[in-house]
């Protein structure tokens, strides 16, 4: 009950005119940052930190965290409309979201994401309010072996998403893993596959690879069709049809739970939350064949999960002072710049600040919902712009966006190269999402494996000696065995009917 009283006190701070304005500015910038390809939430928050030096700490953190969760809303928009994820958490939304847009249901896809994001975000903040500290202590039990098992589980789930041909899926997944090997070996420091190029020393950049494989290849593919695409005639409503409400809401519920749990774990990124949510939705759906053809659950679940993730990611920061993602690490930096030490003492020493910021997150999520529902209709109109005009624009935006990451033409060249590769992959029916997702997870899998082995006294046994990691791996094996059995039984009939990523 204490928490409620404190939270109400927090609203007193969050609802002052200035703090409301900062919250508004924060979430708006976050949304724009999410929409713009290339400029991610990390750079967005980092660039604004110097602006906050003169502000009250509460206002500063209200604004910066607004950018963080606001960007999660924005990232969806480009995934749905132009099949190009604005940030990594939205990769999976491309699969069904873009299909929905092609059917003229872009408004519904965006509307459902906004509602799901709101529910996921608010639930996660409620979690922060009432359950924060004990949950955060538990999450600390995740060390390198546990991450490794979790990531491996994510990879196994991915095999389940392969689409028409498992072989093609595996080729795409292995290609992604190979890409993730480029650059300096995280443990020995040996330099691999860089062909003497300094630019490759730290490996390929996610944004460059994803925008090339998804975005540029889409433009190339459509250019081939003489710019005559089946154009959606009208934008249908923002809300799902009546019979879709029930599955949508349960997908949002599951996404919230999953995203929240994964957000608690420091270091587990939001990509894992959205992959797991997508495959969970596909597993529980009555008719999994709809997935990949514009299934509304395939948008609602993952989008909810990544917002619940970003809310829950604030729990370890507030209660333990531990950043769970790069953006949160930047916000931690801002805490310190303003003379606040995150951790258990924060709740006792600066209650006004803590509860003010928490309350502002409720307000911010509400602002985003109000923004996004009517705006979804505006955004969705983009899908109606003739392709002759839209594609050059997307191309220019992508080039500028990629250039802006490191002010480097090399990145632009790489993006175009990956655009070519993506085009070939689409021609050959290789699932691109499998490549991008294994690329994101690959580097982490490698370093957590090597970290675990470095801390282990018994070699590989460490993964089974530790309870959490053991359970995760067993779960992975069970899923794998079940998939194999069902595969043999149905003689791949399900797989053939399956969707394509």
């Amino acid at each position, binding site marked *: 009950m204490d928490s409620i009283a404190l939270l109400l006190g927090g609203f007193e701070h969050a609802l002052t005119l200035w703090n409301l304005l900062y919250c508004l500015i924060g979430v708006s910038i976050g949304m724009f940052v999410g929409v713009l390809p290339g400029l991610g939430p990390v750079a967005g928050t*980092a660039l604004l930190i110097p602006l906050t030096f003169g502000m009250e700490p509460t206002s500063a953190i209200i604004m910066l965290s607004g950018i963080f969760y606001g960007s999660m809303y924005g990232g969806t928009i480009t995934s749905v409309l132009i099949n190009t994820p604005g940030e990594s958490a939205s990769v999976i939304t491309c699969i069904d979201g873009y299909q929905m847009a092609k059917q003229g249901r872009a408004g519904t896809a965006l509307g459902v994401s906004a509602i799901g994001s709101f529910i996921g975000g608010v639930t996660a903040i409620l979690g922060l309010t009432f359950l924060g500290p004990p949950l955060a202590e538990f999450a600390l039990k995740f060390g390198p072996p546990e991450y490794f098992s979790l990531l491996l589980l994510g990879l196994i789930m991915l095999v389940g998403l392969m689409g028409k041909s498992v072989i093609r899926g595996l080729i795409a997944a292995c290609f992604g893993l190979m890409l993730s090997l480029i650059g300096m070996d995280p*443990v*020995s*420091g040996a330099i691999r596959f860089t062909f003497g190029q*300094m*630019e490759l020393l730290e490996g390929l950049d996610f944004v460059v690879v994803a925008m090339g494989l998804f975005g540029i290849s889409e433009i190339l593919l459509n250019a081939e069709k003489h710019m005559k695409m089946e154009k959606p005639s009208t934008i249908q409503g923002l809300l799902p049809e009546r019979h879709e409400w029930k599955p949508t809401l349960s997908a949002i519920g599951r996404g919230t739970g999953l995203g929240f749990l994964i957000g608690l774990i420091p270091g587990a990124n939001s990509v894992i939350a959205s992959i797991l949510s997508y495959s969970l939705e596909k597993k529980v759906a009555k008719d999994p064949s709809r997935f990949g053809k514009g299934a509304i659950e395939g948008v609602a679940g993952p989008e909810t999960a990544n917002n619940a993730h970003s809310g829950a990611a604030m729990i370890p920061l507030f209660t333990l002072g531990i950043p769970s993602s790069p953006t949160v690490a*930047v916000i931690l930096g801002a805490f310190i710049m303003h003379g606040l030490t995150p951790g258990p003492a924060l709740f006792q020493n600066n209650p006004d600040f803590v509860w003010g910021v928490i309350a502002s997150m409720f307000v911010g999520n509400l602002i985003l919902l109000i923004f996004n529902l009517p*705006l979804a209709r505006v955004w969705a109109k983009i899908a109606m712009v003739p392709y002759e005009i839209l594609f050059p624009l997307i191309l220019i935006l992508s080039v500028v966006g990629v250039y802006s990451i490191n*002010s480097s033409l090399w990145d632009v060249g790489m993006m175009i190269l990956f655009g070519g590769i993506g085009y070939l992959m689409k021609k050959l029916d290789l699932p691109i999402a499998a490549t991008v997702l294994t690329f994101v997870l690959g580097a982490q899998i490698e370093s957590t494996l090597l970290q675990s082995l*470095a801390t282990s006294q018994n070699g590989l046994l460490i993964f089974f000696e530790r309870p959490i990691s053991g359970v995760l791996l067993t779960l992975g094996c069970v899923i794998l065995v079940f998939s194999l059995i069902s595969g043999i039984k149905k003689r791949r009939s399900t797989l053939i009917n399956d969707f394509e990523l």
Partner: protein
Amino acid sequence: MKKLIATLTVIFTLVAAGCSQNEIQSNGNQTAAGDQGSQANTDYPTKPIEIIVPYAPGGGTDTASRILSTAVSKHLPNGQSVVVVNKAGGAATIGMTEVFKAKPDGYKIGMTTTGATSIQPHYGKAPYTHDSFQAVIRVLSVPQVLVVRADAPWKTFEEWLEYVKANPDKFTYGTAGAGHTAHIAMEALNAAANIKTKHVPFDGAGPAVTALVGGHVEGAVVQVQEAKAQIDAGKIRALINVGSSKVEAYKDVPLAKEKGYDVQVDVYTGLLAPKDTPKEIVTILHDAFKKAMEDPSVIEQFRKLGVDPSYAGPEDFQKDITDSFNRNGEIMKKIGLIK
């Protein structure tokens, strides 16, 4: 939609107002600083100066550069502005290569660190080496500390040493990455004290400290400011300082050299200009940044980051870079990072 337009207008007006204010200020300074410029025999700087930061926005080097770049304008002739440009990638070699190749006119300078100029050249991939630049000024020199959990059984460095001597290859320590200054510092201590510890590289200092708090590694070697939040919260404590100097905030943490082990691995941060930059320009830059470093508000902001400014002039800074380059090379050879 109307709402959106309204918000946008508000934001743009705010930005515009902020910009015009700066303009007025710089105009004011221009007249005031007019005669200063004529003394220096050069009209430098006539346009904004670019500082290349070879790391992504938000990191320690970036933050320090941004703090300085806002404060330095008023100490430059003409009140010229200084812009921070992030050129991350290639373990900081890409950004420094750009400085290396820049025209030596003082308009493009770089904020280097130990990693960029005293470690990376050893791998032979960078086109420059430790003495390919004109040193301008050192702004920070941060020592690194070995931290352990607050509930670890070792209260002092001696107790810890006794434990690792009795249990070789058991004690695991996390760092921000292989070949990172922290890794080199700990290996130097290993060699000096004749002990064996196990290195666990993480992707940055943050994850290493998190793993320590979670009890997945037994220790971590990080820069003081990276451990500050958790030390202040009482989750971890520092056993020994493997750098060359103490920090104000943690005065009671002993130095390795006080305990009789010759380990002094600091992480420096400072400005470099391209090699043949004229002496007058280097002097103008050096004087302006020196004054900015003495600015109480800058010191205050650095303190909040957990670091103290640590000044060194061009000659001393170059000597620091060279010494660090040589020492790191020896250790890297010893632990097999390079041949």
